[in-house]
């Protein structure tokens, strides 16, 4: 099998992988919101995780 990925890139960088992960993320969010009956608790947990991620990841921005 010939890899179409450039040097330094990974399988996750491929458009098909992005699409698959994006759909999985969307569906898991829908499922979490549906299972929690629209409770704010799920969004609250996501708020804290997003804040931590954007804070830590900021250091990577050139």
């Amino acid at each position: 099998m010939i890899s179409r990925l450039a040097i330094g890139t990974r399988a996750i960088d491929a458009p098909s992988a992005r699409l698959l992960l994006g759909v999985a993320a969307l569906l898991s969010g829908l499922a979490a919101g549906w299972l929690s009956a629209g409770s704010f608790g799920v969004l609250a947990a996501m708020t804290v995780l997003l804040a931590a991620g954007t804070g830590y990841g900021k250091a990577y921005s050139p």
Partner: protein
Amino acid sequence: MVSFVLAAYAVPAAAVWAGLGLVLGALPVATGALVLAAGYGLGYGVIEASGRARPRAPGSSWQVPQHMLVGAGTGRRVLIWGLALGPGFLTRNPYAGFGMTVILVGCSGHPMAGLVVAAGAGVAHGTGRALALLRDARAQAAEPFDLLLTSVRWRMLDGFALLMVGGAAVAGCGFRFG
């Protein structure tokens, strides 16, 4: 020194965010914020996950002026950086997920819930910034290309997170309006 850096970033962040959460929780914006969270999450989620550079994430382009740091000792510098960067509102954050956290705080619908969630988000953001700073201080400086590649991947991850939050907000809208 580690505890000092963590506190310098997390404490001001918790205070600023708690105030924001109290105000947003007291305002009648919960339903509008939920609809906005759904649209913002899906929109920016697709943009970031697909690797598109524009439109850029909303935010400030202000930078800490050098005159505030010139001549300052290490402790004072850490305090200035912590005050300015810990809460995250003053300087640019390339990830749209940061804006989403503010919108989600607005979804709380109650001052106390808003305060608690926002304070948690503030501590998480400030601690994240401080941990990244401590990591960079210990590690060897990354090559510019590696840094760029990591930033692109981090933005993609942020896009997936936004799609997840957007999905949860869409479900929340379904329960709110259904």
